[in-house]
């Protein structure tokens, strides 16, 4: 039975392990496309893709745009500021107007959790979630999985610890779903105020001290500490956070095995991670960025070829 993705990619929560593996395996040959003298294949020629970004983003938007262009799709970028969105138009109206101009896919980033699902249910175009509120950021989760698999040759059985603000992080959520589905052991480490209540019940180990996490982990995925969290009183100060939870060269030296360090960017050097680690031999942070383009090409390619009848089957979980 062949595996397909369906119409939209809004999160990893409802994907099967086989669907996740399909995306990662499809991403593999796309890495090579970006190394060609002409970094472009005609697979999505004639498709129109709108990048609808209601929140600031540099890396994710550029990564999607490279992926789209390298597949020969036509792309249009719409940012919330300076568009009709700032005049009070609703999300669905914006999307329907775009659809009336005959688009094929929408890549959406939105501050509200669930925005991508909401949109996917209301328009015919394929919808790809590029981050919605605190919900999910599935392509980030997928590129993290691909980077771990590249580095370790597998995902199952690895100990992966997410460090930092788990509570507000869609990257953490997509990582949790993806990693557990592919058989990794997942732990989190961060201040109690930034961990979701009851997370242990999901089978996730909680470390209160970064030293314990480093002792246990094969992979640390260090999340960005959003500075507004401090203003909101979740942590006392950035210096304090760095002293207690910062992933530093000295701390990694005491690790019992070689640890892979990841970060979804943009980094706060000297807050959640120090430069010795970010630029050091353990870091695969730039590999993550490279893999991001390949993973997004794979997702676009798989969704563009998807057929609606398969989409329904995928929603029922029966394939």
């Amino acid at each position, binding site marked *: 039975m*062949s*595996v*397909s993705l369906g119409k939209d990619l809004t999160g990893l929560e409802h994907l099967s392990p086989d669907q996740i593996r*399909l995306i990662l*395996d*499809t991403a*593999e*040959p*796309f890495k*090579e*496309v970006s190394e*060609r*003298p*002409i970094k*472009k*294949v*005609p*697979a*999505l020629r004639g498709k129109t893709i709108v990048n609808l970004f209601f929140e600031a983003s540099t890396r994710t938007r550029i990564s999607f745009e490279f992926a789209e262009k390298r*597949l020969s799709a036509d792309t249009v970028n719409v940012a919330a500021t300076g568009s009709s969105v700032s005049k009070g138009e609703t999300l669905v109206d914006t999307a329907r107007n775009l659809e009336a101009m005959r688009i094929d896919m929408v890549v959406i980033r939105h501050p509200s959790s669930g925005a991508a699902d909401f949109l996917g249910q209301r328009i015919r175009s394929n919808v790809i979630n590029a981050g919605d509120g605190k919900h999910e950021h599935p392509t980030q989760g997928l590129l993290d999985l691909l980077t771990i698999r590249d580095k370790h040759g597998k995902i199952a059985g690895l100990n992966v610890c997410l460090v930092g603000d788990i509570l507000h992080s869609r990257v953490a959520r997509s990582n949790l779903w993806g990693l557990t589905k592919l058989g990794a052991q997942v732990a989190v480490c961060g201040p109690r105020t930034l961990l979701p209540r009851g997370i242990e019940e999901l089978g996730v180990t909680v470390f209160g001290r970064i030293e314990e996490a480093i002792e246990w982990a094969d992979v640390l995925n260090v999340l960005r500490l959003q500075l507004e969290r401090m203003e909101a009183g979740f942590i006392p100060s950035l210096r304090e956070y760095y002293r207690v939870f910062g992933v530093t060269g000295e701390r990694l030296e005491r690790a019992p095995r070689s640890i892979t360090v990841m970060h979804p960017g943009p980094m706060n050097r000297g807050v959640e991670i120090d430069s010795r680690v970010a630029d050091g031999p353990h870091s695969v942070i730039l590999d993550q960025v490279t893999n991001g383009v390949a993973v997004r090409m794979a997702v676009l*390619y*798989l969704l*563009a*070829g*998807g*057929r609606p009848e*398969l989409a329904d089957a995928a929603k029922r979980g029966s394939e």
Partner: protein
Amino acid sequence: MPPDRTTLLDARAMTRALQRMAVEVLELAQGTEDLLLIGIQRRGVELAERIAKFIEKDEGVEVPRGALDITLYRDDLETVGPKPVIGETRLPGDLAGKHAVIVDDVLYTGRTVRAALDELADFGRPKRISLCVLVDRGGRELPIQADIVGKMVKTVAGDRVEVMVEEVDGRDQVDLVR
């Protein structure tokens, strides 16, 4: 009614065909200078390898070879959907000034070859491109022809020509299934 299966080439006949094709490649290219063999994923890659081995035995020269997966250059993504796993594309260095011989198992509509020509053009500008196939089954939908053919066979739509190679399928054989 179960489909009818006729063997077109058994292992020995297939080896003889490939041997002859190797000689014809050498004649066509007038030697091995500038010659490249490029197999189309999946079985074309193995066939190119075999032909290269025969040339090596005769001429004592190792011919550079590459592999091409044309999936992303197909024109039927909408109708057949994405192929689950795409094979490797790897070309042996710069194509400029080279004589590239594309090797595939079966030539049918010509659409695969059209895609391969487009893809090669994105990698560089060979001085010449030729086409070498193990089986030509007719039925072209594009003005494309092979320079070197292992076996010609008349087929109708709905027939399948199955090429099996040792490295992938555990044996060498070509069957016609109708």
